[in-house]
C-alpha cells in the first residue's frame, strides 16, 4: 500500500509545516503589536513556545529518520555490513527498551502537571506536555519495528534508508 503511506507522510509533513507557520505567525504578530501598535499582546510568546514544543516532538515522533539525526558514524561506516546490521539492531533495541522503561514515570509526571496552567492562556500543562508521551510511544514503536526489520530478511533496505529528501 505505497500510496497510503505516501499520503500519510505528506499529511504528517503538512501538519508540521502548518504548526511551524503558526509559530512564525505568532512571532510576527508579537513584533507587530509591540513595535507598531506599542501594545504588546502577552499570549503570543506563549503561543510560540507551545507551537515550538509541539512541532519539535511531532517531527521527532513521526518525521525524523535515523539518518536525519546527528550521528557519530565513523566507526560504523568502516565496519563490515554484517557488523553494521548487528550494531544497528542492538542500538534500536536499546532505544526501544530505554524509552519503554521511562514511559510510566513520564506519564505519571505529566499527569501530575494537570494542576498547573500557563500564566496567560491558561492552558493545562498536562495537555501541553502530552505530545511528549506521543513522542515516547512513537520512539518505542518505531525503534522496535526497526529492530525487527534489521533482524529479518529485509535488513539491507532498512540499513540503507536514505535521509529525508531536501527540497530543491
Amino acid at each position, binding site marked *: 500500500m505505497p500510496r497510503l503511506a505516501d499520503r500519510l507522510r505528506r499529511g504528517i509533513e503538512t501538519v508540521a509545516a502548518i504548526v*511551524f507557520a503558526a509559530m*512564525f505567525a505568532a512571532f510576527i504578530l508579537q513584533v507587530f503589536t509591540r513595535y507598531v501598535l506599542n501594545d504588546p499582546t502577552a499570549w503570543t510568546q506563549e503561543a510560540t*513556545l507551545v507551537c515550538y514544543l509541539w512541532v519539535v516532538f511531532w517531527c521527532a515522533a513521526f518525521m525524523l529518520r535515523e539518518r*536525519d539525526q546527528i550521528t557519530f558514524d565513523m566507526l560504523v561506516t568502516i565496519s563490515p555490513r554484517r557488523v553494521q546490521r548487528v550494531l544497528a539492531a542492538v*542500538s534500536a533495541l536499546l*532505544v526501544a527498551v530505554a524509552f519503554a522503561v*521511562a514511559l510510566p514515570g513520564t506519564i505519571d*509526571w505529566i499527569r501530575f502537571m494537570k494542576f498547573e496552567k500557563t500564566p496567560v492562556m491558561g492552558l493545562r500543562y498536562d495537555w501541553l506536555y502530552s505530545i511528549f508521551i506521543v513522542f515516547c510511544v512513537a520512539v518505542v514503536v518505531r525503534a522496535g519495528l526497526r529492530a525487527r526489520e534489521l533482524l529479518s530478511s529485509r535488513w539491507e533496505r532498512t540499513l540503507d534508508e536514505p535521509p529525508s529528501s531536501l527540497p530543491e
Partner: protein
Amino acid sequence: MSVPFILLLAGFFGLAALGMPIAYAMFVSSIAYLVLTGRDVGLFSEQILNNLVDSFVLLAVPLFILAANLMNAGGVSERLLLFCQAIVGRFRGGLAHVSVVANIIFAGMSGSAIADAAAVGKLLTEMMVKTGRYPPGFAAAVSAAAATIGPIIPPSIPMVLYALVSGASIGYLFLGGIVPGFMMGASLMLAIAWVAHRRDFPRDEAVPLRDIPRATLRAFPPLMLPVILLFGIYGGAATPTEAASIAALYALFLAGAVYRALTLKDVIDLFAQSARSTAVVALLIAGAFVLNYIVASENIPQVISGWLQTVNVSPIVFLLLVNGLLLLLGCLFDATTLLLVMVPLFLPACRALGIDLIHFGVVIVINIMIGLLTPPYGVLLFVMNGLTGIPLRDIIREVWLFIGILLLALLVMIFVPDTVLWLPRLLGYQGT
C-alpha cells in the same frame, strides 16, 4: 564521581560509537543512570520539558533556519555571487576570493556553517572546477574553510546555544563575532593570495567598473537582510529572536513576492524542512538538558574548577588548554554536542579565573567551527564531498593550509581579547 555516573559516561560514548544518534545516546544513558541510582525516571521528562519551555532564546534557532532556507530556495545566492565576482574576481585566484567574500556576506544572513556550505560552497566549487584551472580538492577546501565564518558573523545558531548554557548576552556575543569574522576572512584571503601566486591560478575577467553599480543594485535587496538584523538588534529595537523573525519574514517576501521563486508547495516543503531541522537540533538540546542536570547533580563542574585552582593555572594557560582539548574533540564530535555537553563543564572555572564569558564564547565557537574542518570527523568536509562528489582525500590534502591559518587567527584572538571585546564595549558592554 559515583559509579553510576562513570557508567553513564561510558554508556553515552559507547552508544554513540555504536552509531546510535547522539541525542538518543544521551537519552538512553541518562535513563539508565536514573534507574541505577534509584531516582524517579519522571525526572527525565521533567528536565526536558520544563527547560525547553523556559528557554525562550531557543526560538531564534528555527527562525534562523527558516530565513536561510528561504534565501537558498529564492535564488538569492546566485545574485550575491555575481556581486562578489564584480568586486574581487579581478584578483589572481579570483573565484577563491569570491568564495570568501560571498561567505562573509552570507554569514550575515544565516547562522549555520552547513547552510552556508550548501548555499555558496556548492555553487562556487562547481564554478571553480568548471574553469579547469583550480584543482577540485582546492576548490572544495576553500569553500569548506570559508563556510566556518557563517556562525561567527551574526546571526549564529552556535552562539545562541552558547548563550543558553552560559547565560551570556546574545546581543553582545553577536557583536563580539563581527571583528573575528572579518579577521578569519582576511586570513583566508591572504592564504589564497599566496597559493594563487605560487600555483599561478587564473584571474577572472575584470568586470568593468561602470557595471558594478548594476550588480550592486541587483544584489541590494538580499544585502539589506544583515542590515535589518543588526539594526534591529543594536538599534535596541528588537531582541535577537524578534530580529530573526523579521529577517525570516523579509526573506519570505523577497523569495515569494519579489523574485517569485516560490510556489505554495515550495513554501510548505520549506516549512516542513525547517521544522525537521529544528527538531534535530532540539532533540540534541533536550538530551543535553538531562545530561547536564545529572552532571551538575554530581558536582562535576565544581570538581573541575576546584582542581584547576589547586594546580593554579593562569587564565591564558586555561584558555589554551581548553582550546587544545576542544580542537582534539572537534576531530571526533560535532559542534552542537561539544557546545551543549563539553563547554558547560568549563564555565565555572572560567568565572573563577575571571575570564570574560563573551570573549570565551566567541573564541570557543570559532574553535568548534574549525573543528568542522578537521578530519577524520569534519562535517564540512563531508558536506562538500556529498554536494560535489570531490573525493574526501583530495579535499583533506588541500584543507590543512586553511586550518593552519584559521588557527593562527584564533591564537591572536585568544591572546588579544580586544579583537573580540572592542566592538561590544564600544556599544555599551560593561564586562571585564
